[in-house]
């Protein structure tokens, strides 16, 4: 009962201010060692994002990643709902990154039942620098939500990237309020799971499906409009599903770039999670 009351409160409560950006050490971020470069950096940087809900086993996750050449070739991978299990020295992000010969930054976010600490991570084939974390504004009694930022060192060039995972059952106004502090006013990439379900929520519990059917207002499209006002271009159109649960297909995830041309985009319909991974290629030389 208490859990349901908290879920309800998440949809109708106050919004705090979150925290300023904090450096990795003070925010408890796990950082990996420098990666071994396998090729000289080019102008094209492929960034992918995947909420790996339900894919707890690193070997299973690697097998699913390998099923998509587009994702397996990603230079940078944003992960949401990756975890650290009790009794394990390293996070699953670290285990995956080690297998893929990548470096990583992993921030713990939310303690689940059984002692599993859920988190977000950035995995990269290139070195990560200036890793920072910001706790985003919390809506009501919802979960703590974080933005994880880093500079990806592509040769002499730096590309600022931000990985986010937003609250689930909140109104669009609160979603923008939660995201806005992580949206940088500089050349950058922002991506992750924005949880843009198409509906409004009644008391944070019941989706207002009938009104959405009549009006056709999609939170994903509204988010794109907001990001465009911040000069960010998106990779995935609002009517493309990144959530796999039929018949509730919806675009929950996206990647956005500001002042960096997007050369190609895609979505990989592979299993394992209830989200599909998405990717885009950006031209870091331009």
């Amino acid at each position, binding site marked *: 009962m208490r859990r349901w009351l908290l879920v309800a409160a998440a*949809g*109708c409560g106050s919004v705090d201010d979150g925290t300023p950006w904090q450096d990795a050490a003070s925010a408890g971020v796990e950082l990996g060692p420098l990666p071994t470069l396998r090729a000289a950096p080019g102008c094209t940087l492929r960034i992918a994002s995947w909420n790996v809900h339900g894919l707890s086993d690193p070997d299973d996750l690697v097998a699913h990643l390998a099923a998509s050449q587009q994702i397996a070739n990603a230079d940078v991978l944003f992960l949401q709902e990756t975890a650290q299990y009790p009794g394990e020295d390293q996070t699953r992000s670290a285990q995956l990154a080690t297998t893929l010969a990548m470096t990583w930054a992993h921030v713990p976010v939310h303690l689940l039942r059984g002692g599993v600490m859920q988190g977000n991570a950035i995995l990269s084939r290139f070195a990560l620098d200036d890793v920072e974390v910001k706790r985003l504004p919390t*809506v009501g009694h919802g979960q703590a939500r974080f933005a994880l930022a880093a500079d990806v060192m592509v040769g002499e060039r730096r590309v600022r990237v931000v990985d986010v995972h937003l609250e689930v059952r*909140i*109104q*669009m*106004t*609160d979603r*923008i*309020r939660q995201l*806005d502090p992580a949206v940088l006013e500089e050349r950058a990439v922002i991506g992750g799971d924005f949880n843009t379900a*198409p509906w*409004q*929520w*009644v*008391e944070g519990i*019941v989706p*207002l*499906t*009938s*009104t*959405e*059917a*009549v*009006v*056709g*207002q*999609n939170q994903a499209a*509204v988010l794109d*409009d*907001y990001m465009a*006002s*911040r000069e960010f271009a998106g990779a995935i159109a609002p009517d493309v599903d990144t959530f796999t649960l039929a018949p509730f297909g919806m675009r929950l995830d996206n990647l956005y770039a500001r002042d960096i041309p997007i050369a190609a985009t895609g979505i990989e319909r592979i299993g394992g999670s209830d989200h599909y991974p998405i990717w885009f290629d950006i031209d870091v030389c331009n």
Partner: protein
Amino acid sequence: MRALVVAIALWSTSARADEREGVRAEVTRHHLLYVEALGKAGPYGIGYEYAITARLGLGTAASYLRAGGDETWTASPYVHAWLGGPMFCELGAIFAHSHIASPVMGWGGASDSGGGGFATLGWQYVRGVFVVRASGGVAFGEGGLGPMLGIAVGARP
């Protein structure tokens, strides 16, 4: 279309011969005022219905929701038809307007309006002047199809 009107009129007229107590009670009290959750009028609706005959009523319901800075107005005119026993169905239109306020500088928010229809099948319980209805169905419009489940509580003064 003419055939449909004639069929509805015949079906409606036949109800007047119905000697069931529940039906007679309905036609002697034409006005129904009710509140409804998650029905044709969105999250929390208030409604009024007028019984034309024992089997047929015309109504309208409306609601306003403000949550987290998002506002939604909904209005729904409809036809209510008694199917026999505790069962009824409703057909109607839904007009809705949604406004997402901007909580930040430099973005103007978003507004959208739409019109569509709905069809529901429901169950009704009547005790004295009080009426309780539960219904389920679909709403449709430019956003496609959406399921809806509503519960209403009202009175016939």
